[in-house]
């Protein structure tokens, strides 16, 4: 690194294998819930310690306690042999505890360099040394092998690239204990590899890494040890060499899933929608058909044009050329309203930005697309409003105290169930799911996949967009591969190998993602 980072902060001198942080009976209660039951756990310096568990198992709570975002209810945290209060984020950072969150918490309007040095700006006589900071930031980024420019505005980068910057930022601050919360959720495989390289390097320098992920293969690829949380209880800790996928899943959900990827095959019926040589912003000349009873998977890197293609089908963006046929008839889809009227439903990529009204009740979110149906002359039937919402909550097993609870109070997986669930009562024919299982645990994933089966059995068609290859691979009857706005390959169910599909999505292996900016 590191001459640069070391100049900024002396590298942490840590004996590998020594206990750096110990939790003794750490506990957190919220009004009404016991989010974390007393946990005893010791983290060693220079280890990568994975923490897995379903949504709501207490992982986020644990992070919040360790980073000083929330006070603990009881128990002790021993940092390098001394009790630490961890009452404020500032205290945690001063000790050397940092976190990289799933959603990037940086300033999108500032440059990459400004973000890297946010709070520790380099200034002389009160004047920011902008050029020096850009230079230094660039050196750090280059050194990490990220191949990203330091002078551009952060918001101009993809979410994955922003995530890498967030990780880089955390490493230059004398960090001894670094928490990654689901860092690869929005990363492409290549970006993820860059991140893993960084993580291994930090480990080599004696930094303790907490790695939280739903992706088992990442856990096995990276971690030395893994701890499993379930319902706020630490179920156990294993050395990675002494455990396997099946054991961890069983510990997490306390029941064995025969098959997470629950796939039902139906004989495809008539075509629901057909795109003929469709072009628009971000994609060109795409043709495909979705028939009743089938899942059409769209695989590719983030930015390959998949989301732009479906949002154009959905009327969010205008097509520039080509035709859309709905049940064999040529249609113009000029707005989301048109699309919904035809019978399309879209569960968008970003829950927070596009999917949910977070500060409104669960019930309102669930009923949003169907208010027209449950009201008479503008006035809403409150009885129907209640029964509809309660039925969805029960059918989808959404964990919420009541339909009146705010959507923001639910865990990520349950929020995702709302995003999907609001379309079930609406009765659409074509469902478009854009990254439906990002940040969702195994149990919820299985529930969502089973939901797909239920929709197909009712004669609906599904377009499934995913950056997670096993997901589209195991579920899609037809798999289309996108690269740079073009549909480059089409495969039947499990008809091609993972390697082939990856190669098609990536094309030239040395292609520089950063070069596109």
């Amino acid at each position, binding site marked *: 690194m590191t001459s640069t980072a070391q100049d900024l902060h002396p590298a942490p001198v840590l004996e590998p294998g020594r206990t750096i942080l110990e939790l003794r009976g750490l506990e957190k209660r919220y009004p009404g819930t016991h989010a974390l039951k007393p946990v005893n756990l010791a983290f060693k310096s220079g280890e990568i310690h994975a923490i897995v568990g379903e949504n709501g198992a207490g992982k986020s709570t644990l992070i919040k306690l360790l980073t000083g975002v929330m006070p603990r209810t009881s128990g002790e945290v021993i940092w390098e042999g001394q009790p630490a209060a961890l009452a404020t984020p500032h205290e945690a950072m001063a000790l050397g505890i940092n976190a990289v969150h799933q959603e990037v918490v940086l300033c999108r309007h500032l440059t990459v360099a400004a973000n890297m040095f946010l709070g520790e700006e380099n200034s002389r006589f009160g004047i920011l040394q902008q050029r020096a900071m850009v230079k230094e930031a660039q050196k750090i980024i280059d050194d990490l092998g990220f191949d990203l420019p330091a002078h551009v505005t952060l918001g101009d980068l993809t979410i994955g690239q922003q995530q890498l910057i967030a990780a880089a930022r955390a490493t230059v601050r004398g960090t001894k204990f670094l928490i990654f919360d689901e860092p690869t959720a929005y990363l492409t495989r290549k970006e993820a590899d860059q991140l893993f390289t960084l993580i291994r390097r930090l480990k080599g320098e004696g930094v303790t890494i907490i790695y939280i992920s739903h992706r088992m293969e990442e856990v096995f690829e990276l971690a030395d040890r893994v701890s499993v949380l379930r319902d706020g209880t630490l179920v156990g800790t294993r050395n990675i060499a002494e455990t396997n996928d099946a054991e961890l899943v069983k510990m997490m959900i306390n029941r064995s899933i025969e098959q997470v990827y629950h796939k039902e095959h139906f004989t495809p019926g008539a075509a629901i929608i057909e795109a003929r040589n469709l072009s628009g912003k971000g994609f060109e000349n795409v043709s495909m058909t979705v028939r009743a009873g089938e899942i059409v998977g769209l695989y590719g890197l983030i930015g390959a044009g998949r989301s732009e293609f479906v949002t154009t089908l959905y009327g969010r963006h205008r097509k520039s050329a080509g035709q859309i046929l709905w049940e064999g008839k040529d249609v113009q889809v000029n707005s*989301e309203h048109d699309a919904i009227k035809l019978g399309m439903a879209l569960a968008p990529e970003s829950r927070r930005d596009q999917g949910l009204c*977070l*500060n*409104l009740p669960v019930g309102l979110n669930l009923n*949003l697309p169907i208010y027209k149906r449950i009201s008479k002359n503008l006035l809403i039937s409150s009885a129907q409003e209640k029964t509809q919402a309660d039925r969805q*909550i029960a059918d989808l097993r959404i964990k919420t105290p009541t*339909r009146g609870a705010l959507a923001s109070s639910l865990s990520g997986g349950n929020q995702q169930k709302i995003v999907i669930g609001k379309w079930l009562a609406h009765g659409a024919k074509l469902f478009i799911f854009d990254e439906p299982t990002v940040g969702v645990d195994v149990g919820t994933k299985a529930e969502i996949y089973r939901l797909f089966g239920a929709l197909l059995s009712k004669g609906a068609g599904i377009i499934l967009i995913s950056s997670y290859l096993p997901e589209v691979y195991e579920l899609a009857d037809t798999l289309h591969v996108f690269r740079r706005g073009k549909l480059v390959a089409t495969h039947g169910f499990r008809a091609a190998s993972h390697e082939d599909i990856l190669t098609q999505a990536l094309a030239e292996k040395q292609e520089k993602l950063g070069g596109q900016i």
Partner: protein
Amino acid sequence: MSTEAIAVEKPKRNYNVLFGLTLLALLVLLWILLSVATTSFASANNIANLLRQGSMIAIMAVGQTFVIITGGIDLSVGAVVGFATVVVAMMINAGFPIWLAILVTLLVGVAIGMFHGFGIVKMGLPPFIITLATLTSLRGIGLLMTNGNSININSDTFTAFSRNSFIGIPNLFWMVILVGIPAYVFLHHSRWGRYLFSVGSNAEASRLSGVNVQRTIYMAYTLSGLCAAFVGVLLAARIGIGNPTQAEGWELQAIASSVIGGTSLFGAVGSVHGPLLGAFILATINNGANLLNVNSFWQRIITGALIIIIVYFDGLRRRGK
């Protein structure tokens, strides 16, 4: 699940009701204190006067609340009131029947609101800017139309309305009820009311769920303009003149009433009863301060302090949940 859901739902309902009751208690407390502290407060005359004072801000605050729930703001309402007094006065003096004059004035309010919607939706202007622009230009247009003079309204039937009462309650207060009940049904029991909340919470999610976001925004500003024009008609009747510089600063009083009534300036939180109570709390403070011979400068300071205190405690309780 569902039985449990019903059991746990009560706290939330209670919270909204509780906040309303707290405001009501504050209002009653103020009335009791002022009745004890002054001899003139509890007189029928003063109460009627208080109700008249509060009514107009209350109606404006309801329209303003619709806009704030969508995450916007309408700074133009004070100017719309002033402009509406001019329109209605000129039409009545020109010999048009009163009902027609009122109708046209209301339509002018609707048109101004539509223009705001157009500026926000089609031109992409921030609500603050477009309504600030109409605030200044409407005053200017009104001054051009009147050459800067006041217009004395020559219809007694029109002006008598604001002085009269119906079964002991001033007509102006009846107007609050006339606006308040449909507004309540609209906001809390109609589809479009729900859409105001959903757009204020997340416009993109609403759009993707099939909500017509543009129409919802048009609607909010149109209703706000309509309420303001209606208040302009009432004000013209009350003071008997049309003058474009009337109702200076009323937009801030309307916003203050709305915020005191629990509306969140971040959008998606608000009610109809809240701003109504907020408006009458403000009116009571002004009225009481006059009776107690408190320097009118103090009234402004008290109002400011009250906004900070109420919004702070409301925020505390929301976060405390």
